[in-house]
């Protein structure tokens, strides 16, 4: 286990106007275990407590209660040891706009204890593997979002950490840069580095990670591999729009091939296996019940359906 956390909690005291304070429970008891060499994702809407959790594990924020060991060291009592063994790429990226990328990379290497020559060599190595050599000497403020992101990743890896934290690594990137970054994260895992990333993109957690937790309101609501989680909900989902939502829900829930129904906003979601074959039966049942359908769609169930099942909300609306 490269990360083991038990009952992590963080309560912030926020100022609300004059002299008034309010306690905000950002993280309300999180247990985590991440294996060596896996890509582990924290999936959840904005404000779910993902960033706070990562910041506690990376020794930036001290937990209010609970314990965590990262790379074998306690995040509070042995913070310095933890820092030697992690790379951390925060949401802001943490690349200095005022210096060329190469200078920042060499500086990060020097802080990590490398000599001048070692740091220069390590910077060259990282810039080669992230295709940054050509733009190494341009001021970072002139670079594109994707290029900046690759520099922040390179800086996070300068000390060859066995574990790297990536907080929302692809937020704001275009699809091309996002796909490239996924490849780079997979390459990291293939080289033996463990990765803990946070994301609010379902497809990202689905495509990229080996295991994930779904976080909502500071708590873990589900945990497992993407496959296992999706198996919890049936394979397919029919999304219906009609006038009598509740009537249709009752009618469908009584059908033997429907495993679960959820009303979400103005639409009704019915979960079922083998959707292609059961769809005609479903349509006939609705017709027999005199329910007029405005629109209907059949899809494979996604992690969003898992989120919906556990929280009663769609991840798209939860943010």
């Amino acid at each position: 286990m490269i990360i083991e956390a038990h009952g992590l909690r963080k309560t912030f005291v926020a100022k609300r106007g004059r002299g008034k304070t309010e306690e905000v429970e950002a993280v309300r008891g999180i247990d985590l275990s991440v294996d060596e060499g896996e890509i582990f994702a924290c999936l959840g809407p904005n404000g779910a407590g993902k960033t706070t959790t990562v910041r506690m594990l990376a020794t930036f924020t001290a937990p209010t209660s609970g314990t965590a060991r990262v790379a074998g060291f306690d995040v509070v009592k042995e913070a310095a040891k933890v820092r030697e063994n992690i790379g951390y790429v925060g949401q802001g990226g943490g690349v200095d706009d005022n210096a060329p990328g190469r200078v920042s990379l060499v500086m990060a290497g020097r802080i990590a204890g490398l000599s001048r020559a070692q740091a220069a060599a390590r910077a060259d190595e990282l810039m080669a593997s992230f295709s940054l050599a050509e733009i190494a000497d341009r001021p970072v403020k002139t670079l594109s979002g994707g290029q900046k992101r690759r520099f922040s990743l390179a800086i996070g890896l300068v000390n060859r950490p066995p574990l790297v934290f990536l907080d929302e690594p692809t937020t704001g990137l275009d699809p091309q840069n996002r796909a490239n970054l996924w490849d780079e994260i997979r390459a990291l895992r293939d080289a033996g580095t463990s990765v803990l990333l946070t994301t609010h993109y379902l497809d990202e957690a689905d495509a990229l990670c080996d295991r994930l937790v779904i976080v909502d309101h500071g708590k873990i609501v589900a945990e497992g591999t993407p496959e296992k989680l999706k198996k919890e909900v049936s394979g397919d989902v029919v999304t219906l729009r009609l006038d009598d939502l509740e009537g249709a829900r009752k009618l469908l829930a009584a059908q033997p091939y429907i495993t679960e129904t959820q009303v979400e906003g103005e639409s009704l979601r019915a979960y079922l296996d083998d959707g292609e074959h059961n769809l005609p039966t479903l349509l006939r049942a609705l017709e027999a019940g005199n329910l007029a359908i405005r629109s209907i769609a059949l899809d494979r169930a996604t992690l969003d359906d898992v989120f919906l099942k556990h929280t009663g909300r769609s991840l798209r609306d939860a943010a």
Partner: protein
Amino acid sequence: MLRHTMLFTGYELGVLRRNLAWPIIGIMQPILYLLLFAPLLTSIAPNGSLSEALVMFTPAALVMIALFGSMFAGFGMINETRNGVLERLAVSQAWRPAIILGRVVKDMIMLVLQSLLVLGVAALMGLRISLTAMGLMLLLMAVTGLFSANLSYGLALAVRDENGMSQIVQFFLLPLMLLSGLMLPMSLAPEWMQTVAKFNPLYYAVEAGRAMFVDDFTHSTVPVAFGLFLVLGVLTLTWSVRSLRKLAG
């Protein structure tokens, strides 16, 4: 510890070297004061000469760089609270005080270099002081910078907002300047102002500078100025390093 401080200082000096225009513009203000204000003081100088006026005004021009230059040093750090640089450094292997101290040493070096330039201009205008006086004055500038830069970084980390910070700095700057006898010696002021000035640390810097410029190294304000700024420097450093820790909430 020392290694990390030097690393950060070197890095920051590099940033400065790539943007040399800013510190050069920063030094124009005290030089303009020397050129256009010091001549006005000849009428109140003891024997009415420009060189006497320069002895009175040059220390003030130097303290002015410390005020207007170093007090704004923290502005750059506000952005770093947002773009994640400080967050990354806080979980790196860097010795935390070095993150602040490295920058402060950079500001002190810059302050001493700028002071040398201002002293050069003053010398061209007719200022004559001993080498000991010059050396001690530069040292005094360094400790003044230690205080004002630390204060500025602490303020930046506590306020974390450019607009708020500029209001606060401006609010304190004017009374600090007028009550230090920077423009005109406090001896010209009414008694109540002289009393208030005794609570302004900058008053001692200006007065100690004036005393040292006439080789009066045992003047009471000289040890007070050095001691005061060293102590205040350590206190403000502690404060700013604490504010750095508070970033994490």
